[in-house]
């Protein structure tokens, strides 16, 4: 998917993450901060990159402010931000397809 405009999903509540995607400069660029960085930073990064790959996003700047979200929450917030950035978040969401 192509990131067309800046879009956000998620909150800064505990156990959530706030994800912002912006059009990129040819690659995936990740900015990550997390309240559980020392123990889960590596896994959060893996989840973010794997989710973007699944959504076929290869050109984006993504900012994740994590407040201890579980992997499923992170993936959902990323999916939502990406779909919003393409104006595809209103209808015909591919549940069970690209969105898992």
């Amino acid at each position, binding site marked *: 998917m192509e990131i067309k405009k800046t879009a956000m999903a998620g909150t800064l509540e*505990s*156990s959530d993450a706030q994800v912002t995607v912006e059009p990129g400069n040819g690659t995936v660029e990740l900015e*990550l901060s997390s*309240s*559980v*960085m*020392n*123990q*889960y*930073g*590596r*896994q959060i*990064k893996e989840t973010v990159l794997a989710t973007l790959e699944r959504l076929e996003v290869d050109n984006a700047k993504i900012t994740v402010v994590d*407040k*201890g*979200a*579980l*992997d499923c929450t992170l993936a959902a917030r990323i999916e939502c931000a990406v779909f919003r950035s393409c104006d595809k978040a209103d209808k015909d969401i591919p549940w069970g397809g690209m969105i898992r």
Partner: protein
Amino acid sequence: MKNAVGRDIPEELLVNGKEVYQGKNYLDGKYIQKAGPKTRRYEKPQESKIVDSLAQALRDCGAKSGMTFSFHHHLRDGDYVVNMVMKAAIEELGLEDLTIAATSLGSAHDPIADYIEQGKVVGIQTSGIRGRMGEVVSAGKLKTPAIIRSHGGRPRAIEAGEVHIDIAFVAAPTSDCVGNCRGIGGKSDCGSMGYAMTDAKFADHVVVVTDCLVDFPNYPASVEAIDVDAVVVVDSIGNPKKIASAAARISQNPRDLMMAEDVARVIASTPYFKEGFSFQTGVGGPSLAANLFLEKLMDERNIKMGWAIGGICGPMVELLKKGKVGKVIDVQDFDLDAVHSINQTPNHFEMSASQYANPANKGAFVNKLDFVVLAALEIDTDFNVNVLTGSDGVLRGAPGGHPDTAAGSKVCIIVTPLTRGRMATVCEHVVTVTTPGDCVDVLVTDYGIAVNPLRPDLIECLDKAGIKHVTIESLKEKAYSLVGRPDDLQWEDKVVAVLEARDGTILDVVRKIKPYKL
């Protein structure tokens, strides 16, 4: 050298007779030579000991660089006294190389972090360390490793002369002109002053700082004039709103209540739950809520609690007033209901930290305790508990009375949710061992109960009562299945804090955390 909880203690710390932790009751029966303070005679009658300023009091007590000042934490996060005294010592008298020996420190003491960074404060000995001070100490900016002790370990160390207090500062809600102090009757009331008592007896000099001067004699006194050199009257010793909350409320969170009910059921399944039993609980959500369910079970069986100790708050005072507990003995008060009850409600008494929890005296209250209910930041599969360091390895907690009550009690119950956000509370290895697993008996979580295999008697009790329990390993696996397996923290070699077991042996060390690189 590895100690009894498997922690590697650097050899350079094992000097002057320091040993690694060997298991509970290791030093039982040994003799100690108590240290005595060097105190000044005030033979000529004095009308008053009031001096104009903290700076003057410091000068009168011969304050100089390199000294150790002690403080107590009854004013909790409302305390102004530590910052006030250190400011006078460092900025007015120009002292340096100072050590702060406090019963606990909190985020109220953030300004002390600057003095640490400037190298003016070079030593910290405390139970709690949080906020900016925790951050700068964790970053390795304190010249010597901080020494973390439990509430019972501290009076033990003072009596043994391992901490020599040059000047003790007593934050007194009320005092008379010669230094008889009480925790009530003023504008910054804290109730019990139990943690200050040992300090006042073993310090060379004692300075009382108060914001409410009352008529002589201020009696019954928590800290007595016979130990006091000087009295300083200031505008305010603390922020009353942060000293004691209006009333500790019992949690309405269904998860807390479910765990609290399980705690009460575990207690009631043991033979110790009988007429006259003794009890202590923390003030955390599920710990405090256990009071509620315990009362129901006491009514059902028609038994009463003999006595309760600890940090005390409203719900326990309520039980005392209802006649459901015989005596409440109190080292610290957490809310105004408790503050206004101590020494007022019949059978609500004050005790010193040594009476409460010191392992080296001839029998502290914790040794007669049947049940204690405690919280944890983390607990590992050996039942070791961490209440000091966060999941990022930074100092942000306090052992408090946790290790003392766990060691002394017949049944120590830890109650905690299985996960907090993405942090697994039940884990493979705690970041720091603050309470050794050989003192912890039962774990109650929202996903199940586990009993320490060292207590087959308790396993039998739960089985007989039909209370389901699982292994602690299965709870850990459940936690990891929810949040993922955490990576190990990465440390540098530098030791930033030494965690003493209550008997004075070394239980663990906290090292400087490596900056995290993704």
